[in-house]
């Protein structure tokens, strides 16, 4: 068994606490976190995290496909606006 498998995914403890609190409260709030290094766990699915990018908290609605990735992957630290042209947005 490789060391990384044996150790399991890393999550900052306060992220787990906040997520658990939000889930118990049943509130639809943005859970503000600064931990970009934390792994997305199955119990986070359906919650919305505000992941800090050094400037602001980017809303990240966690879905099943994101499990195993890090929060920081969904909160880029650089912004590019570009042109709207024919780009589409889908309301989930």
């Amino acid at each position, binding site marked *: 068994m490789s060391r990384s498998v044996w150790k399991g995914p890393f999550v900052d403890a306060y992220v787990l606490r906040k997520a658990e609190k939000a889930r118990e409260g049943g509130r639809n709030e943005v859970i503000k976190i600064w931990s970009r290094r934390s792994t997305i766990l199955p119990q986070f699915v359906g919650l919305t995290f505000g992941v800090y990018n050094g400037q602001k908290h980017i809303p990240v609605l966690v879905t099943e496909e994101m499990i195993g990735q890090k929060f920081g992957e969904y909160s880029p630290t650089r912004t590019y606006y570009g042109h709207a042209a024919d780009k*589409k947005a889908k*309301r989930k």
Partner: protein
Amino acid sequence: MSAARVCVGAIAGAFGVRGEVRLKSFCAEPAAIAGYGPLSTEDGARRFEVTITRQIPQGFAARLSGVGTREEAEALRGQRLYADRDRLPPLPEDEFYHADLIGLEVIDTGGRPLGRVIAVHDHGAGDILEIAGGAARRGSVLLPFTREVVPTVDLARGRIVADPPPGSLDTGPPPPGSRRAG
């Protein structure tokens, strides 16, 4: 607040000696730019039918109607090309063009103005509306583009009704002492 015209590309210069241009497309599917013709210049003075002849690094080589020489093509360098908004195909329910959303006024469920949509982002976790002005006093705020947070998009009246989750309208860095490692 749907714009009458949408910027879909720009002319980067001449290509070759036969009057073709180097065309830069801003479309989600770059080759789709040819289907939105005729395209007009920013001032609307000239209109072109676009025929893409080949793909080149950083864009396309294209032939524009009424442009026959390299000099004419080179004279168009830097021109932005606009398509009529009507040329964009209709979308299914709950899909919107960024061009339609940008500029819409955002109010909360109580009617309080929150600002205007200045951009739409997608970082891989769903679309996000960036709103500036109004309640977004410092910089801008980001709202997830979901049915729960954005229950109403009224393009005809040019406004969006949002129900921001608690804490989502706070902007700026974390308060001193509350910053976590990582």
